[in-house]
């Protein structure tokens, strides 16, 4: 009789996909882009990838396969939560679902509202959002700094 395979329960994912909403209409949408790139390029390189939401929804196999096999963190600009809803529909519930307006509210911070060019103050808030993402990445990969 075949023995049941023992599946180790202590294996943590090595990579996390970050899905920004990119919202074109609002400044918070620009923040999602800058925060995601900051995590990917500077704070947690090698541990994160960004998933291009329009490509993902348009049906790209590579993006969907990644999101099916690795945990995702969605980052939405507003309460409509387009990235979170789309990700859940296409590849399952995101491991974490963050919203820029919630993060800013928690810290009592406010953006300039300029969607085209983020100000120096906005970029400080990008750092704050990026740190929140990085903390969630560490919780998922089990390597909290």
């Amino acid at each position, binding site marked *: 009789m075949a023995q049941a395979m023992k599946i180790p329960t202590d294996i943590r994912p090595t990579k996390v996909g970050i899905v920004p909403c990119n919202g*074109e209409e609002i400044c918070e949408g620009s923040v999602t882009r800058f925060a995601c790139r900051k995590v990917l390029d500077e704070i947690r390189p090698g541990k994160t990838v960004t998933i*291009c939401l329009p490509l993902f*929804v348009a*049906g790209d196999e590579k993006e969907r396969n990644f999101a099916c096999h690795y945990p995702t963190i969605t980052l939405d600009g507003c309460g409509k*939560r387009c990235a979170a809803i789309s990700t859940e529909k296409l590849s399952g519930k995101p491991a974490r679902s963050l919203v820029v307006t919630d993060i800013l509210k928690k810290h009592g911070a406010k953006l300039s509202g300029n969607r085209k060019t983020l100000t120096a103050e906005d970029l400080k808030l990008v750092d704050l959002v990026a740190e929140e993402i990085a903390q969630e990445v560490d919780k998922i990969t089990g390597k909290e700094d």
Partner: protein
Amino acid sequence: MAKKVVIMPCSGIGKAYGEIGRQATYKVAESLRPEEVETECLARLMIDDPETKEKITNNYVITVDGCAKDCAKKNVEKTGKTVDKAMRTLDVFKEHRDLKPEGVLNLGEPGMKLADFLAEKLAEEVDSLVGKGE
């Protein structure tokens, strides 16, 4: 009420061409043709947001894609709307190969110049759609 032109860039996050399309869209909507042009969040179409769907159904739509995968066009056309003009950032880049964007989001001067060239082309398309170019 006169139809407006809704420009929907793909905002691709992997390469600079997504940001170039986004910056060009803002330039047309905020500086070159503010009366005629608006932009909407592409992601809202992905959750079937009724207001966004209504807006693109009742107005002209130009999509701006950063690569040949044409995600903005595909996502708009998934709603049943046929886009009035589909543009690609890469077509502008091919005409100005000397201009290399500095980063994915921080485009630097060369990348912003590419966005300006694309914005001019978009403004021409807007004029053509709303009848000013005739």
